[in-house]
């Protein structure tokens, strides 16, 4: 009997990235992965910056100048937003992994995302308006 193997393709590897037509659980999964990648990237960046700062006060001043850059500020906003989303969804994952609320996982996701949006709006106003 002829058997042809499905070749792994770039499309298949990245198919989780935008779970088009998938149910909300897959969107939560994608969100968690993307925020995880973002936060990991930020972590490395943070360590690199700390390393630079260890080189003395001059490096510190030039770093402070950087933080005024609106793109950097947006990046910082993104990091905090990502942490909030990832953290709250993470609580949902922990709960369902212990069998709590598995049959209500969609409602859990929507509920936590509402909280996330409220918190993000709150800290956004704090961050940009003060």
């Amino acid at each position: 009997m002829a058997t042809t193997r499905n070749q792994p393709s770039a499309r298949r590897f990245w198919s989780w990235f935008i779970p088009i037509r998938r149910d909300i659980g897959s969107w939560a999964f994608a969100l968690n992965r993307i925020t995880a990648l973002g936060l990991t990237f930020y972590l490395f960046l943070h360590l690199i910056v700390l390393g630079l700062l260890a080189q003395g006060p001059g490096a510190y001043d030039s770093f402070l100048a950087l933080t005024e850059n609106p793109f950097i500020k947006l990046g910082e906003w993104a990091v905090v937003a990502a942490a909030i989303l990832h953290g709250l969804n993470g609580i949902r994952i922990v709960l369902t992994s212990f069998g709590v609320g598995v049959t209500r996982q969609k409602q859990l996701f929507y509920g936590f995302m509402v909280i996330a949006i409220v918190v993000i709006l709150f800290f956004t106003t704090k961050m940009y308006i003060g």
Partner: protein
Amino acid sequence: MSKPHVIVIGAGFTGVATAHDLALRGCDVTVVERGDICHGTSGRTHGLLHSGGRYAVKDKESAVECIDENLILRKIVPQVIEPNGGLFIGLNESDLAYAEQFIESCEECHIPLEELKPQDALKLEPNINPKVLTAFLIPDGTFDPLRLALAFAGTAKHNGAKFRTYHEVQGFVMDGQGNVCGVKVLDRAANKTEEMRADVVVNATGAWSGEVTAMAGLDAPVKPTPGIMVAYDQRFVQRALNRLNVPSDGDIILPQRRMVVVGTTSYDAENVDYIPVTDDQIKLMLERGSELIPGIRNSKPRGIYMAARPLVGGGSGRSMARTFKCYDHKETHNIDGLVTITGGKATTLRAMAEKTADVVCAKLDITTPCVTKETPLLSYRQYYASPN
């Protein structure tokens, strides 16, 4: 000495059961099928493990075949069966009048039956029509069509049979003297044709028997007779449910997983490759089904389908016998090397295979006796799980 090679055309119930029997008797078997296991009629069968009660009055030969094979299948392949028995219920005067001959005929065919009072029937099956006037318990059952075939196919594969699915027979290979000595197949998955040689070719294509024998220039007396099935999305009963009367349309309801399946109708058809479903047949199943189980009116159809039974012999529709026939074409048309097995019911697949294997082995001088009655089948998963 090498084993004789038998090619079986068709991987429905008849084909896989025959492959299983022949493999156990020492043949090298190759099954060729243009689709996959149970692509034709076998896949879309109702799934009734017949007790024979339905045929006891008018078709005693089939009835006895059914009850005998019913007990054998319960022993050798319980993994695919819901073995909860069945009820014949009477709802009106005509049904009641049928009861006496029903009882006599079942006893004649050694089909065990037990008469129930209406209230006891309702206690066993609360969802049947509350106006039930009389009821009989008989050893019907439900089976999963594909998995029944997979169990036979997987066991045959384990015993050396080869399965070439997506291989369509396009013609026979003839020797110089007008006998069949092989088949020409198209591998549909690879778009390649090849020739396969065999000592005997078994035509187990059911409703397509005539189309296949035509490739050798002869016809088979099979009459494709389609019928409709409608599956509803609630498991209303635990047992098979039959109408206590002569066989008619929509008088069988079977539970299967979380559904019940109502069937069926019976009419002639020409084109067997695709049989359309018609609205009037769907309506008829709803009408007749809700006579037996009123709750069906409040449930949704889950699947609706048609397939053609391979009926042999004279008459048409419901008057045709449900028995099976095996033709050695050396005797019918002086064309050696080709045997056709057709007709029959899913419940009698093992018996059909035994008869066919007897004919084939006689031609090949194989004297090994048939052991399929006592041989438990392997897990149906073996068909896919074991390598090709």
